[in-house]
């Protein structure tokens, strides 16, 4: 069985965000980049499946040259091959543009299960799983916290408000990983050494059937027109806690009369 894993290489969640000079993107200087944390669950799911059932794991991303570092990390953890659709020098693409580029690359790969994180950290749009499934005409389940294999397909437990949906789907299919699915492994030293020798296949958008002139920058279906720091919150109103009962009464009074939430 063959697996494809899509990853996003994103600013570390701990990174301090500074607004770039254009006022609509981040200042990338000093940003530390990481494989989006949810994609690690996706990668782990694919590698575990390969270990149990054989097959290959190919990891795919859309991004500039720096994303090769993220791909190599995935190779070090156990992926067999890596493909990057190059965005170097292009304007920003929105979810749809990225999905089209990824879908173009995936179509050329053997794929029984396509894995990705339920959302990319940073843009936090949570659109990629259903978009890719649609563009590739595959069934999908997103927000998967548990997965079992059955004949010809999978059973996925999907986290929703106040319940879990149990979803059955046949191969080929798309799985959107959520925290809880597994515990991602670290790369072994042997894996890191082996990954250094592997070649990352870099494809230009045109090679995967996408015209970046129609999907990026001012032609993206969704554009960021402004990026700003969130408005500062008012300073906290501290309630003295010497007498817990009095403090609690005062808090209830404020919540009821001032904030009007009780």
């Amino acid at each position: 069985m063959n697996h494809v894993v899509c990853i996003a290489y994103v600013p570390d969640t701990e990174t301090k965000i500074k607004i770039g000079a254009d006022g609509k993107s981040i200042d990338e200087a000093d940003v530390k980049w990481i494989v989006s944390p949810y994609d690690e669950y996706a990668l782990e799911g694919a590698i575990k499946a390969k270990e149990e059932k054989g097959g290959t794991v190919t990891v795919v991303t859309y991004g500039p040259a720096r994303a090769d570092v993220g791909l190599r990390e995935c190779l070090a953890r156990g992926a067999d091959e890596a493909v990057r659709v190059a965005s170097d020098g292009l304007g920003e693409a929105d979810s749809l543009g990225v999905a089209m580029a990824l879908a173009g690359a995936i179509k050329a790969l053997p794929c029984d299960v396509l894995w990705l994180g339920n959302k990319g950290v940073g843009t936090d749009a949570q659109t990629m799983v259903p978009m890719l499934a649609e563009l590739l005409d595959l069934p999908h389940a997103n927000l998967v916290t548990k997965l079992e294999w059955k004949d010809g397909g999978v059973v996925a437990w999907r986290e929703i408000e106040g319940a879990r949906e149990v979803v059955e789907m046949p191969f080929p299919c798309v799985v959107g990983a959520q925290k809880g699915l597994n515990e991602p492994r670290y790369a072994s030293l042997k894996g890191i050494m082996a990954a250094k020798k592997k070649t990352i296949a870099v494809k230009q958008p045109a090679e995967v059937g996408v015209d970046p002139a129609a999907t990026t920058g001012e032609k993206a279906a969704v554009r960021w027109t402004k990026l700003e720091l969130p408005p500062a919150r008012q300073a906290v109103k501290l309630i003295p806690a010497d007498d817990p009962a009095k403090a609690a009464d005062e808090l209830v009074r404020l919540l009821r009369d001032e904030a009007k939430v009780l």
Partner: protein
Amino acid sequence: MSNVLVFIEQRDGKIRKASFEALTLGREVAAKTGGALGAVVAGSGIGGLAPELAAYGAAKVFVADKPELALYSCEGYTAALDAAVAAFAPAVVLVPATSMGKDVAPRLAARRKVGLLSDVMSLEVEGGRLVATRSVYSGKARATVAADPGAALQIATPRPNVFPASKGAAGAGEVVALDFSVTIRAKVVKLEMPEAGELDVAEADKIVSGGRGIKGPEGWPVLRALCHELGAALGASRAAVDAGWIGHEHQVGQTGKVVSPTLYVACGISGAIQHMAGMGSSKVIVAINKDADAPIFKAATYGIVGDLFQIVPALTEAVRKAKA
């Protein structure tokens, strides 16, 4: 720009609150675009929902009523939405940013090859296009995003609990049955419900959350008592979940659920950036923590520096008294 179509989420024949919020927002958008307001609902045996939607201003209610739509499936419900789009030719589609909406809207966007403004916290119509704001980079920045004005369709998913729901001038509520065929490959075969009576954080209007400061699973009853008095859901920080003190379904934050309740009471939570990413848009935040330097106090509206095991029971009692 003209007609506005809103996707209505129902479960067991009951319309979810986030759908009324989206419908109210749709009515405001339609007033600006000068178009009609439509609603689309999918399920089985749901024909009677139209009057409720008309009360919020829906002129047309597109109903996809089929036995195979009894349980949610992305393929089935997207096909219903897509059929309504074909019938109503909307310029704008709104879908609540719930776990269902965030599943259906991107599939529709990809099918129609149009963009999607996801999980928006404000929505305006400017120069023939939708302009919205969204929280990005774990809540550390706010992006203004705009749809392509030339797009045949503009889609947005408004975040639940952010936009108010209110009835307006009643619409005609004309029921239009949708006829389409669909092959559902990813089938929901079962719904697993948690213990009865547990309110889910993602939908709760009030949340009481615990972190490392509750010291262990034996701390939850103290918080649950306050939940009970407030009618709040019980939340948890990543630290509490990773320690194995409570299940992941309670986790609020970057790797848990993103919530926007009216009231968020953080007990013994330091306020790591990943936690703030999940609850930063709460209307009122109360922080109870022993450490006066905890970052949570920077985000809080009200704070009490003290031992939560003394403060929280006192607060439970104070709420009980205030209700009496």
